[in-house]
């Protein structure tokens, strides 16, 4: 058994800054066709934590609180989605903490509108400030080991490498990077964030040793989000079990499973 895996198989549940979540799935709250559909998907997925975005309150019409549509048992993880600078992300995080009284923050600093790829430099700068201010920082970043190490050194509670562009549904594009990250950072809590499209994508992320997966569009844009929620729950459990079980080595040629002797002539 690899040392990386040995480190992780002893504990159960997803641990973020000492908090234990039984579900390794974190899901978003955007893009659903109705609140009802969102709630059904949340319940089916078994997720215990959901992300929400921070936006200006509309002043020209009365608005209900979006949070009232969420199961009160869910842990809310505010994000800094839509921020393109460290400064805006830090301001957004501070506002979220004031409104929700939570120190959890999913840090995102985007660098480009077409790909929504993260700006790693700005992300690092924002993470440094937020960790100093006592936030539990979960940064979204490119699947890069060196960036992962820097984020860990700063004191991020978990690191969230992307699988593929946000909302693309392409699945894990660079499994080698995730595997290397897992093996080189056995102590890190790694949550694959963004790009998962269907259940097998989530299972692959978990088989590579991720501690959890965060997704939104894969569930929200499914024809039946509740069924996809269930599929993702099972995929993450299956992928995790396969990782803990330790897969067989890949071979180029066949290796007979039945005895080679005693075959009738």
């Amino acid at each position: 058994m690899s040392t990386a895996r040995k480190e992780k198989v002893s504990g159960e549940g997803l641990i973020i800054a000492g908090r234990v979540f039984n579900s390794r799935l974190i899901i978003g709250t955007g893009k659903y066709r109705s609140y009802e559909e969102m709630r059904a998907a949340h319940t089916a997925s078994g997720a215990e934590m959901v992300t929400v975005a921070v936006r200006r309150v509309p002043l020209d019409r009365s608005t209900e609180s979006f949070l009232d549509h969420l199961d009160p048992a869910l842990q809310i993880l505010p994000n800094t989605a839509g921020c393109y600078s460290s400064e805006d992300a830090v301001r957004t995080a501070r506002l979220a903490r004031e409104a929700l009284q939570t120190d959890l923050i999913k840090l995102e600093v985007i660098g480009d509108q077409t790909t929504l790829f993260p700006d790693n430099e700005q992300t690092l700068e924002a993470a440094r400030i937020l960790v100093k201010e006592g936030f539990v920082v979960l940064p979204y970043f490119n699947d890069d080991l060196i960036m992962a190490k820097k984020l860990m050194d700063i004191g991020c509670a978990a690191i969230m490498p992307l699988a593929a562009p946000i909302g693309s549904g392409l699945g894990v594009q660079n499994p080698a990077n995730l595997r290397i990250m897992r093996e080189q950072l056995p102590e890190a809590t790694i949550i694959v964030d963004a790009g998962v499209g269907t259940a097998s994508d989530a299972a692959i992320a978990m088989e590579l040793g991720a501690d959890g997966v965060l997704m939104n569009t894969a569930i929200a844009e499914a024809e039946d989000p509740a069924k996809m929620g269930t599929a993702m729950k099972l995929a993450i459990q299956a992928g995790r079990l396969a990782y803990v079980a330790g897969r067989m080595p890949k071979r180029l040629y066949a290796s007979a499973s039945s005895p080679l002797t005693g075959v009738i002539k």
Partner: protein
Amino acid sequence: MRIYVNGDAREFSSPLSLADLIAQLDLPPARIAVELNRGVVRRSDWSNTELRDDDQIEIVHFVGGGS
């Protein structure tokens, strides 16, 4: 006096506290957060924060989102 709220210039009569502003805008005070000139003002300080001409206010809430 003129106060900028979420980027829009609006006229208010002074004196005006942040708590007064929230009330006049008819916003539900739960689960919103407020910034005055780029710094968060804690809820407990809304009533003793007097606003001045050209103050920049951001008032935010939560919406559905993922990444």
